[in-house]
Structure formats: structure tokens, C-alpha cells
């Protein structure tokens, strides 16, 4: 009896570890390759060197792309938080005509193929003569980031006790002040989480960036794309590792902040 259970547990453990390895393998391989001293992508790397990191950080083309990616992702996070919070409040708190339609419209970018959004926006931006501007790209990225924000913030708004806001208003806070001083601080974990998801949605997007950025000011993923097509050198491994570290750091920071808030 116990033998069989143990065997089952063992099989499950082996299976789980295999799945984890398969999931994490590409990241591990890229990570290791990025330290290769050779001119070509080598796995396993024959030695250890930081030359490709040096190549990355000293190349103005890579630095421009990095700057663009960070600026666009940060602006996307802020913009989609503002819009997403307002939409969430409307969806949770109010009854109005077309509410179900609005919810579907807002969430649709999650299931729509990104390429369709990209092509549509490309023609729209050409018409509006804003193609290639930072603002236009931020708007485009916000379209795909807002569903994440709305999903996370509506969930926590539903469980937020409205009487906290009422209490603030009975004590003399105007409705806007009550939201600012009471609601938003208490939704901080959700707002941080939503902001991070929006940041990442923008930071690792390639499809919209391919259509909507200028070649002279690409995002990091687009620069990687261009690089892979021209010269495959280990710089992209270094860049990819850097991007992964940024994402993981972001996640870790949010988790830390949320834990701190809960303790607070």
C-alpha cells in the first residue's frame, strides 16, 4: 500500500522536475551562452568572459533600444494604470448601458491576434501621421496592457469594502479625496501587480514594435530581431539575459512590496 503511494509520489516528482527543466532550459542555456568568450554562440561555453556584456553596454544602438524599451514600458505602465483603474471602477461600481459591451471591448486584446491589432494600428497611425512616435507606441502597448490591469484591479475592487470610502466621506473627504487617501492605498498590491504586468507586456512585445517603431529607435526586442537576422553573435544572449533579469527583479520587487504592505 505505502509502497505504491511512494512509487506514485516518486513518479510525480520526476515528472514535475522534467517539466520544470523543459520550461527553464532555454533561459539557462541563454544565460550560460552569454558568458562565452567565443565569437559564435557556443553551448556549453568553452570558457567565461564578460565581453558580450561589454559589447552590449558599449554599443549606442543597443543602448538606444534599451532606453526606448524602458521609457515605453514605464509610460505604458502608468498610462494603462490610470485608464485601467478608471475602467475598473466603472465596471465594478456603476450600472450603465453597454457595460457588458465595454467589458468585452476592454478585454478583447487578450484574445485577439496581436498581429491584427498591429496591422490595424499601423494604417491608423500612418493616417494620423504619428507612426514611429513614442506616444503612439505607448498607446498601442496600453491596448494590450490594459486587460491585465483591469483584470487585477476589478478583482480587488470587488473585495474592497466600500464602507471604508463611505467612512472617509462621512468624515469630510470629498469622493475624489476618499479614493486617493483610502481606496488607492488599500489597493496598492493590485495596483503594483497591474503596473508590473503592464510593464512586462510592453517590455517583451515584439509584434507591435515591429510594425510601429522606427528602425533608428527600435525597442529592445526589435533590436534583437534585427540582430538575429544580420549577425548572430553572442550579444543577443547577453541582452536576453539582461531582459530576463529585469523581469525577474521586477516580479521580486512587487512580491516584496506586497509582503511589506500586508505586514504594515
Amino acid at each position, binding site marked *: 500500500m505505502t509502497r505504491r503511494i511512494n512509487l506514485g509520489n516518486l513518479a510525480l516528482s520526476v515528472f514535475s522536475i522534467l517539466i520544470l527543466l523543459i520550461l527553464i532550459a532555454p533561459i539557462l542555456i541563454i544565460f550560460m551562452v552569454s558568458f562565452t568568450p567565443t565569437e559564435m554562440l557556443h553551448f556549453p561555453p568553452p570558457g567565461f568572459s564578460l565581453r558580450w556584456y561589454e559589447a552590449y553596454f558599449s554599443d549606442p544602438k543597443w543602448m538606444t533600444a534599451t532606453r526606448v524599451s524602458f521609457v515605453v514600458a514605464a509610460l505604458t505602465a502608468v498610462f494603462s494604470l490610470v485608464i485601467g483603474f478608471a475602467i475598473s471602477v466603472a465596471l465594478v461600481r456603476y450600472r450603465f448601458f453597454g457595460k457588458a459591451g465595454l467589458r468585452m471591448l476592454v478585454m478583447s486584446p487578450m484574445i485577439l491576434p496581436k498581429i491584427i491589432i498591429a496591422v490595424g494600428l499601423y494604417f491608423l497611425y500612418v493616417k494620423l501621421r504619428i507612426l514611429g512616435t513614442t506616444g503612439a507606441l505607448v498607446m498601442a502597448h496600453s491596448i494590450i496592457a490594459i486587460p491585465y490591469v483591469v483584470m487585477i484591479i476589478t478583482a480587488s475592487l470587488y473585495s474592497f469594502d466600500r464602507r*471604508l470610502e463611505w467612512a472617509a466621506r462621512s468624515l469630510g*473627504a470629498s469622493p475624489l479625496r476618499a479614493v486617493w487617501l483610502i481606496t488607492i492605498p488599500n489597493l496598492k498590491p493590485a495596483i503594483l501587480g497591474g503596473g508590473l504586468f503592464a510593464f512586462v507586456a510592453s517590455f517583451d512585445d515584439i509584434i507591435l514594435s515591429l510594425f510601429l517603431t522606427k528602425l533608428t529607435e527600435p525597442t529592445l526586442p526589435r533590436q534583437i530581431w534585427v540582430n538575429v537576422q544580420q549577425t548572430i553573435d553572442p550579444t543577443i544572449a547577453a541582452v536576453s539575459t539582461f531582459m530576463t533579469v529585469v523581469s525577474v527583479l521586477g516580479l521580486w520587487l512587487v512580491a516584496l512590496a506586497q509582503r511589506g504592505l500586508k505586514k504594515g
Partner: protein
Amino acid sequence: MAPHATAARAPAGEVQGASLSLHGLCKDYGTANAVRGIDLDLAPGRFLTLLGPSGSGKTTTLMMIAGFIDPSAGEIRINGRDVTELPAHKRDIGMVFQNYALFPHLTVQDNVGFALTMRGINKRQMQAQAQEFLTLVGLAGFEKRYPHQLSGGQQQRVALARALVFSPSLVLMDEPLGALDRRLRLQMQEEIKRIHDELGLTVVYVTHDQEEALTMSDDIAVMEDGVIASFASPRDTYEAPGNRFTAKFIGESNFLIGFCEDWQAGVASVRLGEQLLRVAAPQPLARGQEVTVFVRPERLRLTDSTAEMANALPCELISEIYLGESCIYTVRLSDGTHLKVRRPNRGVGVTPDLIPDLVVGFEPENGRILTS
């Protein structure tokens, strides 16, 4: 009529209670009517309880007074001033919520001082005043704690201090003691009454606990189905309820249905099968009118048939519930009606199960005629 309703209440504190009037106040949610026309006038300094079962509209009424729910019709006046259109944050009403609604991210001090901060009072003065009110509710020394570090009773006190700190003349409380255990609830009832007396506030209190309503209020408005079924002092509400709903909702009650045979000088003769009962009835009654005779269980007596009693009905003992300080007996009359009788446990006399020819009875002044 209401002995303890208007006891001398010179406000010792700096606050003078506000008067409150509601006229034709209604709220309908689409098809359902939550509140269907509330009229009441409350004098300054009174403690009014809105009492009723859930769904009777008491909380909706309270939230309309506070300004969180817009009335569909009607008017709210505080100190004679129409505030129906005034937003909640400009009404200067103190509010205590069912689950306290303390701000979890703020310290006790910042919770209590919130209203002062909103009024632009500087931090030093805010802290001093917050401390003063924390002392009033017996929580001095807790300034730097967070709400989740406090017990339920302490959170309740913080909520109370927070609602009082800006000296509102009207304070609303929505089942503030609902989440506390019985012992703590009794203690807080006293505390709230003390503060009410000390500050001379006008309080509107919502509860579904009839005992709480009886012990705390100057006036009780019993609500049923979105309207006020009865508005009277606790004593009148209990002793002389105006209708069956009120009688049933407050305390235990017995009803006997019969026909009025005669009415003279405040006493009605009511035909109940073979029996003729004599019951107090302040309002004149028409001959032949169907009436309900209402008697509280503690006003009924169980004796043998030889005892002198105006109204005596032969009965049969069905069951007994032992409560310690008293016993509740259920008896059946010859027509099948069940009555409840409460007998204090005095430790003397024969228990009803040993009485031959058992009768249940009452004097005329212990009964009441209800016509609705």
C-alpha cells in the same frame, strides 16, 4: 407616557444635538421598494433606534440620512436645513459602521484624526484632539497601533472616537455592536449611552436586536417593509404596541382573536367562543368588530379554577421550558389556541403540572386590544 424619554439632558459637552426631520422619504431600486415613505421628527439630543427585521429598510434609511444613497423622493432636514441634495462629506454627520470600517493602512491616531485632517487642522492639534477622544473611549495609549492589532471591542471604540472627534451634532450608527459577543455588547451599550448623555448628541441607531433597542433608546421606530410601523418610547412600544407586527417583533406575545361585544370607558368585552374577556382598550371599538387581544407571557397567570381573576380560561399544560430565572409554559385552550406563560422562579408555590383544573388568566389592564 414615556418616563425616561425626556430626562433632563443639559449637554455637559460643547456639542448640542441637532434636530432631524424626514418627510416622505422613499427609495426604490428598479422594481423593489426598499423604503416607501418615512416621516419622522426627532428632537435635538434624542436617541432614536430604527428597529426591524433585515430587509425592512432601516439601513437604507440610515444611508440616505448619511448621504450615501440618493432618495427617490422625499426630504431630509437637519436643524431645519434641507440637506437632501448635500453631498455626504458636507453634512457633518458622524457615522459608525457595522464592521467598524477602520482604515487598515492608518494608525489608530490617524484614523481618529482623519476628520480633523480633512478640515485642515494642523497635525499637532489633530493629535491632541485625537488623544482626547481616545481617552473618552478608554483607549489612551493605543495611538500608534494599527487596527488589525486591536480586538473587536477596541476597534469599535476607535470607530466611535473617529465618528465623534469633529463634534458632529448628529451621529448615525449602523448595527455597531453586531459583531461583538454578548458581554462586550452590554458593556459597549452602556458606553455609548454614557457618551450620548455626556455630549448631548442626537443619535440614530440601527439594530435588529430588540433588547438593545429597549435599553438604549429614547424613541424606537419599528420598521416593517419600508415604512414605520410604530414610533414610540421603549416603554410604550413594549407595553402598548399599536399593531400586531410591533407586538410580535418586540418581546414574546400571545394573540387571541375574538369579536367586540361591548366597549365602555376604556374597557372592551370580547367574545371568545363561550368566554367573555374584559380587556383594556383606550380607543373606542364598534360592536361586532373583529379584534386581537394581546397579552405578554409574563402578564399571564397559571392557577386553579378557584382563584379570583377577571379573565380565566381553562387550559391544558403542553410543555415547559426551564430558563433558570423563569419558566416558559405552553398551554392549550379548549379551542386549540396555544399560549405562552412566563413564570418567575420564586422557589415557592405549586408547579403548574401539579395544579388540578388548570386555568390561565389575566386582569383587564394586562391585556391590550389590537385592531391592525
